């Protein structure tokens, strides 16, 4: 008995010694939500795209300051006004050993625009892609577009042969319940390989030794665990079990700061949190008003807007780690944003507007809200529900995890929502993206403003948007944007709430670049 104990003990010791001397650095981190499909076209959401940005790469990428850098394309030029030529990097290999060539770019360009993709807006449907030679690709556009490549850092290039070999050419959408091979496995060119992926449990990445670029990180393995409970996530960081967790709840920032081994990284994020209303259907899906849609009446929309005490939300729920916003874009991304002022908080005006619109006794509406996507998202929705209750609008709140929330409200499920909370960071860091995705008219299938879930539509805004796209003079361009935003503001196309702040909890052993778009990329991490 004693002998076996000794043997066991020495085995344990040996095991311990065997692992310690190697310099293998493992980074363990947690996020509040899960990583679902690993198909890079399934979901246009920052966490998913940022996770996959470690495995896949686009033709371009962005550095820590969000400036565009060459990635899979070494350089590009506009050869004719409507023809862009991309020179691809040579000698790049996918994780399975396949070569990266022009064929893969054409394949990815078609796949990203195919049925089920959530990133269709990355490339206009009328754009054609032509192979010039193995390492040169031309994009022929229907009209000039000076910001064509702004969003391409998150349009990841997939391996044509690998995808076809595994019968995964069709994209698994966010609402799909039968994921195909590409939704469960990944084969990119990026600095990390996807080692294993168990949805909702754990995802492991390992270093790609054959990466084309020089690695500035020193990680060998990265482990991701989703932790939904705020308190548990913070506890895991404080105990040293995890190296990085995000977001940390605003109320715990002080606690994380006061712990000698951890610190809180905070800063403004480029994300606007806003409320959207279904203005497209003749009758709301979730409401007691039948035969008409109250949100089609601008007075009702304005009443909702004015019923919301944004200062209260920012001060109490966000503990001032947010800025009230009058626009759908961050003030850091649009120079004239300080000209816009919110419609003032005024419950009496709100009640008067409802009365004028014929809803003196209020009405009820179902609200969709994620509870693990944005900072304090569910608490914000609850506060909105109680603020609206005070003017007579009864909100039936449906707060659920983001996987279920996105599967319900996005285009892939036919925009199944009447009233919703969403956050948006324009991935091109430019107002045109906001207009095109959130405020442009769309049809029922989502052609047009694909993320305009409420279907706000004003042809004048669409016309201005088209002008914005081709206008090269910054001043004129900003004026056009201002004109469009003014219309949306007056018509209350959506209700911007605030710019949320970033809050990451980081162990002092870890150095990391916190990008203002809340992307967490392992290549910017060093651990000692």
């Amino acid at each position: 008995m004693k002998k076996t104990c000794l043997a066991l003990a020495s085995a344990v010791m040996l095991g311990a010694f065997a692992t310690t001397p190697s310099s293998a650095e493992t980074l363990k981190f947690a996020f509040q939500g899960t990583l679902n499909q690993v198909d890079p076209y399934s979901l246009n959401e920052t966490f998913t795209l940022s996770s996959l940005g470690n495995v896949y790469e686009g033709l371009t990428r962005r550095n820590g300051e969000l400036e565009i850098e060459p990635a899979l394309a070494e350089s590009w030029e506009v050869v004719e006004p409507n023809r862009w030529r991309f020179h691809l990097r040579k000698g790049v290999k996918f994780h399975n050993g396949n070569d990266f060539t022009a064929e893969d770019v054409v394949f990815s360009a078609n796949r990203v625009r195919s049925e089920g993709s959530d990133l269709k807006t990355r490339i206009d449907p009328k754009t054609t892609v032509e192979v010039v030679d193995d390492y040169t690709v031309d994009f022929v556009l229907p009209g000039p577009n000076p910001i064509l490549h702004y969003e391409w850092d998150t349009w990841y290039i997939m391996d044509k042969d690998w995808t076809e070999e595994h019968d995964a050419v069709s994209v698994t959408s966010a609402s799909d319940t039968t994921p195909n091979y590409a939704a469960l496995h990944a084969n990119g060119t990026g600095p990390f390989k996807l080692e294993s992926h168990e949805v909702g449990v754990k995802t492991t990445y390992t270093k790609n030794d054959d990466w084309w670029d020089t690695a500035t990180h020193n990680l060998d393995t990265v482990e991701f665990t989703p932790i939904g409970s705020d308190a548990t996530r913070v506890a895991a960081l404080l105990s040293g079990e995890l190296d990085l967790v995000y977001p940390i709840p605003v109320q715990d920032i002080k606690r994380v700061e006061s712990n000698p081994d951890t610190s809180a990284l905070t800063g403004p994020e480029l994300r606007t949190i806003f409320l959207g209303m279904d203005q497209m259907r003749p009758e709301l899906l979730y409401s007691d008003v039948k035969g008409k849609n109250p949100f089609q009446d601008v007075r009702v929309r304005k009443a909702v807007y004015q019923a919301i005490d944004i200062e209260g939300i920012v001060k109490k729920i966000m503990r001032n780690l947010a800025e009230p916003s009058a626009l759908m874009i961050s003030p850091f991304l649009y120079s004239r944003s300080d000209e816009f002022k919110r419609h003032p908080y005024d419950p009496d005006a709100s009640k008067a507007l409802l009365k004028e619109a014929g809803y003196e006794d209020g009405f009820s509406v179902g609200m969709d809200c994620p509870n693990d996507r944005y900072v304090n998202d569910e608490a914000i929705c609850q506060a909105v529900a109680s603020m609206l209750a005070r003017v007579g609008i009864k909100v039936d709140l449906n707060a659920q995890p983001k996987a279920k929330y996105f599967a319900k409200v996005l285009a892939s499920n036919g925009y199944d929502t009447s009233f919703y909370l969403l956050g948006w960071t324009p991935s091109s860091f430019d107002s045109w993206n906001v207009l095109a995705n959130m405020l442009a008219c769309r049809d029922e299938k989502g052609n047009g403003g694909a993320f305009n879930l409420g279907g706000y539509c004003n042809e004048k805004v669409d016309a201005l948007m088209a002008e914005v796209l081709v206008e090269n003079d910054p001043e004129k361009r900003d004026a056009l944007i201002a004109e469009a935003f003014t219309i949306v503001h007056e018509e209350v196309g959506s209700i911007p709430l605030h710019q949320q702040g970033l809050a990451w909890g980081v162990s002092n052993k870890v150095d990391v670049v916190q990008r203002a778009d809340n992307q967490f990329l392992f290549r910017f991490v060093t651990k000692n």
Partner: protein
Amino acid sequence: MTETSETPASKKAPSTMERLLDSDIFHAFLRSKVTIMAAAGTLILFLLAFLSPWIAPHDPFDLASLDVMNSYMPPAWIEGADPAFLLGTDDQGRDILSAIFYGMRISLIVGFCSVIFAALVGIGLGLIAGYMGGRIDALIMRVADVQLTFPAILIALLIDGAARGLFGSLDREVFSFWILIFSLSLSFWVQYARTVRGSTMVEKNKEYVQAARVIGIPSWIIMLRHILPNVTGPVMVIATINLALAIVTEATLSFLGVGMPITQPSLGTLISVGNDYLYSGEWWMAIFPGVALALLVLCVNLLGDWLRDALNPKLR
């Protein structure tokens, strides 16, 4: 009962009340100070819970009365507090004291309903199994055995998840309530069934049952009219202890986020919300509902324990 108490006690048989006051159980009750305190505690908590719409200082379910500017207020005796909120407020500006009263009411209603449903299912199946015997008995009891191998909370989670998947689109506030009751009662019926079956098997061989059978009374009447009254003692004990258990299980489910929604919070939901604020020093949001839950369960449990001992002839 009122009729019997009107008749003079000296002439006729003692009224129900007098019989109760003179019973062994009542004397046993008076002898145990802990039990008296537990009974008083239970009574007070029940009153607070069921009278909450009249005695609670605020209505935490009325969304229109909440003001986010009132959120995170500490209890009244701490600096920076508003005396209107005796035990402080939560993240939405809900008064914790009122939320506890209302939450306790939901916890108790869910507890009572699930105990009643579990007892109905368990007694019914136990009677049938014990009286019929044979294959029916074997079938029912094997199902019960299999279910006993799983912890009740797991069964409740399973039923809850399946039901939500099936009828997820219905009104959540009403729906969560019934799902909870359904899943809790389905996880607790086994104990009743086993106990009732055992007692039934003893009773059915007694002469009064045989006599009833001989004169041709149908089985179901024998079960309900003759056997059932003689097996209720143990059922009462189980029901009381199960009430405490059901309340705790409900709190656990709500804490895990599969119970009552935050718009209709039970004690478990309140603790779950407060749990997120333990690190930031807003302890009152979790502690007070926690203390309320502990008190409630302790009192009911003590009563149940005492009832078990009092009804056990061997311990008398």
